[in-house]
């Protein structure tokens, strides 16, 4: 490695040798972390997913795990279902978050503004487990909402609102909300009000201003929010399994089953890679579509 200047060197200090030492000391933790905890484990996981046990403690390279995934409908159905539900959840989150982000960024001022922003943040300082517990108390057959529905005379007997696909979606949208609202607010705040005023003066109306001025300007923020929400939804485990019960059919659950319950690490590793592939592909596609840099998006969100 080339010698490199590090830090403004103190006058009279040992010069190059010391600079190298400092560089080494700074580089060591980063390399241990990135190689030891990220790169090598993932290479190991890839190797694991590409082998098959032929005899006790003997393995041969094989694509059998990926073949199982394609041939077993349960597995790829679950995969497709997880992807589609995640896209749906991302879309709903965007639709619900946008008006609030607009209100906070453009309509309210001063104390009210910071109050609303903090109110958006507070629920997400609480663990996802607690929030899911809240939804379970609200939605289960003996819970609050079914009781309210009976009181109002809408249903005769309490209905079970848990363990449905719609319940999973509600939980996922709820959990993701913050990660959409925050990038949207910062994108909308950077929109100059006079642009909207000018468009209005030139005869634009609500929808046309929204489509031609606001959305193009906010696109990077919208995209950042969507990417983060999609990733988090795809990789979520807690919300689908608790709110969806046995019918949740979420892909992370399959990974857990293979890895921890069945101890079939080869199959679990293959599933893990498929999920990682999908997640990475969506992130990459999103960045390509809008020509943004990964680092910028991560910093923004």
């Amino acid at each position: 490695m080339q010698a490199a200047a590090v830090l403004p060197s103190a006058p009279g200090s040992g010069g190059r040798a010391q600079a190298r030492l400092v560089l080494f000391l700074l580089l060591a933790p980063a390399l241990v972390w990135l190689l030891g905890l990220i790169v090598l484990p993932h290479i190991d996981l890839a190797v694991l997913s590409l082998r098959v046990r032929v005899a006790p403690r003997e393995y041969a390279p094989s694509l059998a795990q990926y073949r199982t995934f394609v041939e077993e409908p349960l597995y790829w159905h679950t995969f497709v279902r997880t992807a589609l539900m995640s896209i749906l959840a991302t879309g709903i989150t965007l639709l619900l978050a946008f008006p609030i982000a607009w209100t906070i960024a453009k309509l309210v001022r001063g104390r009210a503004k910071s109050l609303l922003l903090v109110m958006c943040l507070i629920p997400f300082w609480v663990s996802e487990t607690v929030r899911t517990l809240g939804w379970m108390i609200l939605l289960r057959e003996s819970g609050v909402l079914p009781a309210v529905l009976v009181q109002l005379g809408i249903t005769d007997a309490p209905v079970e609102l848990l363990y449905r696909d719609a319940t999973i979606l509600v939980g996922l949208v709820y959990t993701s909300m913050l990660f959409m609202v925050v990038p949207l607010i910062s994108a909308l705040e950077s929109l100059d009000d006079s642009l909207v005023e000018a468009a209005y003066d030139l005869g634009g109306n609500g929808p046309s201003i929204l489509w031609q001025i606001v959305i193009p300007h906010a696109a990077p923020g919208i995209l950042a929010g969507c990417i983060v929400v999609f990733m988090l939804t795809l990789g979520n485990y807690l919300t689908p399994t608790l709110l969806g019960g046995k019918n949740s059919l979420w892909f992370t659950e399959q990974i857990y089953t293979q890895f921890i319950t069945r101890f079939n690490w080869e199959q679990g590793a293959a599933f893990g890679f498929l999920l990682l592939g999908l997640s990475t592909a969506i992130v990459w596609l999103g960045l390509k579509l809008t020509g943004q840099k990964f680092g910028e998006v991560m910093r923004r969100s």
Partner: protein
Amino acid sequence: MIASLPRPTWLRAGTVAYALAFFAFLFLPLLVVAVFAFNDAPYPAPPWRGFTLDWFFGGKPGRTGLFADGPLLASLWTSVVVAAWVTVLAVLVGTTNAFLIERARFPGKQALSFLMLAPLVIPGVILGISILAFASRLAQLADSWWGLELDFLRPGLPLVVIGQFSYIVSIATLIITARLKRFDITLEEAAYNLGASRAAVFTTITLPYLKPALVGAAAISFLMSFENFNTTLMLVGSDSPLTVMMYGRMREGATPALNAVSLFLMLASAALALTLLRKPADGAGR
């Protein structure tokens, strides 16, 4: 429409109504969790049977409150210990990373700082299984080559700390780098010109400047570790942190003692949030 433009009454009313509905949606789950911590019934469900503090202080069989529930308290403590380790490690490594990105020049720096963000886009479950598999391979190798029994590489708390650290440090790095980027380097140069040693400059100039970011990064790291579920679930051994313990009980149908511990968590995070927001530290919050 923006505030300076005329808005029809229906739109104003609609905005207010929507905001009310939105915040009801946000707070309703938290509200019911808090309310049913005080309901005098064996399950957190309506109807309301009267106020009780049993789910905090009760010790009767079938009515074990939070403070009499040994396993629950133990898991709470486990979470605190894990989060403390993760916080210390993440802030330390986050700081060295920030200096590496901002101050050092070396070939491959671009790629390295790109790689530092990668853990944020890897689903937590996959981070968990990859570290689990790799650690178990290392343990196997150590066993067959040197006959060493490396217990910390088996599922358990050390592995949970390592797993959570692997992505939380990315966030700590982002927060600390953002502040270090805005540091005026001439301050350090002035101190050197005045004859200060490197250590003195670091402790009296650079570190105090970075302090808000370090505090912010520590708070975020602690919270993210405390709340982590996905990665933890894959790496956990016999001692469960709180999230995993709560998950197990929620599947079986839990008593309101779980509401009590949740209320406790809400108050703790609200306190943490308010202290951080009162003096707005750079980089605190997301």
